[in-house]
């Protein structure tokens, strides 16, 4: 039987890639404590912990739904028990970078739905904004509380081979995963209580309360005891677990579209005691399905007339409607320019180089170098519609190419970046897997707050760079430690 010490020695850091634990064979300083504790454990003990973690997730129903999986609709989100560690110093840079970015993105949204100065001054091409499917003319000129559009965001970061964090994409509509971040931490505390207690890890578990306080502040000031609800598409939605988790943690009602009704430009929920007015809605339904009278008329998930209440300011909707224009993957390329334009600052966190395929030159370059590129749809998330140029067959590429040429505005390309790796405990061995990192930021009248941590998503397949849960990805707890 091999001891954990032997297994750790066998761990091979991939060359040319930043490994979070190892630096040319040596254990990085911030992983020392974890590694030395592991050396005192044996493999069966760790396997037992792995098993326990699986049971905890299963019994709590911490699952998500995969739409393209015919085998069944529910799956446990795979969890790797070895925590990822980031130093407090590195985190402080990430935190400042995200705050700066969100400040600029909020200003952009206010601008683009009002005066459009940034477009008039040609910082961002007008046709890029106008052609964005998530740019909604219906919300033009609507005043939102405290001029905040992005209240809740999940910014995806990756660490390049130089050890720096880069922004991969902005999620400003209904970012999910925060419940996994919180539950991962709870499970880690259960399976590694001693190591956790000794590691000086920053606290994340006040996220739901912080969120609730922000939601309360968004109601009109003349309402003394506002009613806040969380609007979910229902129990079959892939992220339903998260919706119910957050509602329970905040102590607010979890409503579906059919529970709400609009009367005289006010939103009410149907209770056993009759109708009760709702003042703030944290919606987890996409814009398109929110109001069948304004957007998709076939939507049965939304609330007819809710836009009229929103327009009148009788209900606050979080995140604001129309945010999709700011996290469009083609608009992403212009965020550094936004930061410069609105804040007159240099971006703290850099973007990944992005090619807009609507530009003929960029398109030709990407087509020539497709084996080094990843092509993404500008309006898709979850890893759907993604082309990994290094893994695609010629036939598949020709098909994808034809699709791109038909509608180039809907695609961008980025060079394939070798994401950093972390040790994972898979099949009784420590083995490196690629990861990204999604911290969650909250923006309220008092500014931006980011809980020190986030969701580390892991590409569990060996060599894979796709971390999305819908594409075989898992997650692990992320510790921000002060050494």
């Amino acid at each position, binding site marked *: 039987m091999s001891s954990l010490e032997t297994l750790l020695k066998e761990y091979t850091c991939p060359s040319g890639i930043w490994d979070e634990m190892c630096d040319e064979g040596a254990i990085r300083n911030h992983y020392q404590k974890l590694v030395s504790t592991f050396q005192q454990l044996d493999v069966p003990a760790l396997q037992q912990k792995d098993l326990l973690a699986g049971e905890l997730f299963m019994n709590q*129903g911490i699952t998500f739904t995969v739409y393209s999986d015919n085998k069944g609709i529910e799956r446990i989100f795979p969890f790797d028990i070895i925590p990822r560690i980031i130093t407090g110093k590195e985190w402080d840079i990430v935190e400042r970078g995200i705050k700066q970015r969100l400040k600029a993105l909020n200003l952009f949204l206010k601008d683009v739905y009002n005066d459009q100065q940034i477009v008039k001054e040609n910082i961002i091409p007008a046709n890029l904004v106008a052609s964005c499917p998530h740019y909604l003319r219906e919300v033009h000129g609507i005043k939102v509380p405290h001029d905040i559009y992005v209240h809740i965001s999940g910014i995806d970061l990756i660490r390049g081979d130089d050890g720096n964090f880069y922004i991969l994409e902005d999620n400003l509509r209904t970012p999910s995963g925060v419940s996994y971040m919180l539950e991962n931490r709870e499970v880690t505390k259960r399976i590694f209580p001693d190591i956790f207690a000794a590691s000086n890890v920053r606290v994340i578990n006040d996220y739901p309360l912080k969120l609730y306080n922000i939601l309360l502040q968004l109601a009109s000031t003349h309402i003394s005891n506002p009613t806040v609800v969380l609007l979910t598409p229902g129990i079959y939605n892939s992220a339903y677990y998260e919706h119910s988790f957050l509602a329970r943690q905040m102590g607010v*009602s979890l409503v579906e579209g059919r*529970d709400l009704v609009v009367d005289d430009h006010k939103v009410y929920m149907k*209770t056993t*005691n009759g109708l009760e007015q709702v003042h703030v809605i944290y919606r987890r339904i996409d814009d398109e399905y929110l109001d069948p009278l304004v957007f998709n008329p076939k939507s049965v998930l939304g609330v007819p007339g809710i836009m009229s209440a929103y327009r009148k300011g009788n209900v606050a909707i979080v995140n604001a409607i129309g945010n999709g224009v700011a996290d469009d993957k083609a608009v992403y390329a212009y965020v550094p320019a936004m930061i410069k334009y609105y804040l007159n600052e240099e971006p703290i966190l850099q973007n990944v180089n992005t090619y807009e395929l609507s530009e003929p030159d960029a398109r030709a370059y990407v087509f020539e170098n497709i084996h080094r590129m990843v092509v993404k749809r500008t309006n898709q998330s979850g890893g759907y519609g993604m082309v990994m140029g290094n893994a695609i067959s010629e036939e598949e590429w020709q098909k994808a190419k034809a699709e791109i040429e038909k509608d180039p505005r809907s695609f961008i390309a980025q060079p394939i970046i070798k994401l950093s790796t972390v040790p994972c405990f898979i099949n009784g061995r420590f083995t490196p897997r690629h990861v990204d990192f999604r911290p969650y930021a909250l923006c309220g009248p008092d500014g931006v707050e980011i809980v020190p941590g986030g969701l580390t998503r892991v590409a569990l397949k060996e060599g894979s760079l796709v971390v999305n849960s819908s594409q075989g990805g898992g997650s692990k707890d992320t510790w921000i430690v002060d050494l």
Partner: protein
Amino acid sequence: MLSRTADSLFWLSRYMERTDGLLRATSSHYILSLDSMVMGNMTWRSVLEVFTTLPNDEIATLEHNSFATLHALLTDVNSQSSLKVIVTRARENARGAQDHITKEVWEEVNALYHLLNQSNISDRQGEQDVIKMMLLFTQHSLLYTGVADVTMPRGLGWSFMNLGKFIERCLEILVLVDKHYEAINYNLNEENVIIQWKELLFSLSGYELHLKTYRGSRYNRNVLHQVLFNEDFPHSVLYSLSRIQKYLEDVVTEHHSPGSAELTRRFGALWSKVKYTDPTDIKSDNLKPFLESTKQDLLQFSTRLGQNFFSYQ
């Protein structure tokens, strides 16, 4: 409370109570059927008639086959009334009201669901551990009841849960009693031996109480008294109705409306009918109509309860 949430809590409880009833009745019947000396010509017909909606010809093909019957009652996903489907529905309702139930309650429902969805569950019915399997399910069902009692906050949600639970329980008792007395042509004057009442009493967890409480050999009457009028017996009709009355009062106190007043009045009539019936007035010729009218009144009450509080569509 959201109407939809109240509805989900009500049905979560109904399905979990049905789970408990189905498991008790099935395991009691199975264990008794092993004793051929006592139950020589026993078939699964009565259980299938009470707990499934299968047509008569299908029941006829199943009633002598224990393993096929157990499959139909417990794990058949095509049957709308099998344990697996009932627990799946309970879980769906629990999910729909997840923000109103405690984490512990959710975990219990979820654990039972996963237990029933283990890939080898159907195979185990054909083996000797069928009793062990049913016992395990029953333990989970009991655990759910205990966990709900210990962790759920008292309030509207708890009241709707209990309304669902006791409506389901009362209906189940009425149907089971009817089925067992039908087998003896509702003859209350004859003195069947206690062994013939074992199945009903075991199905309602009342055998020990019967032995302790009732003396004499007038089993047909004594058992009837216990399952209909004994207020100390938690699986009697009167006990269930008294609990419904208590939780209805709790709900109505917080909902003053003409609909609530009408609901209280109608339920009061039903409760009084059972409470103030002299057990000696129940005769062989009026037992069936009594059971039937009580069941119909309760079903009507349940429908009105839904219309009054759960009409959110």
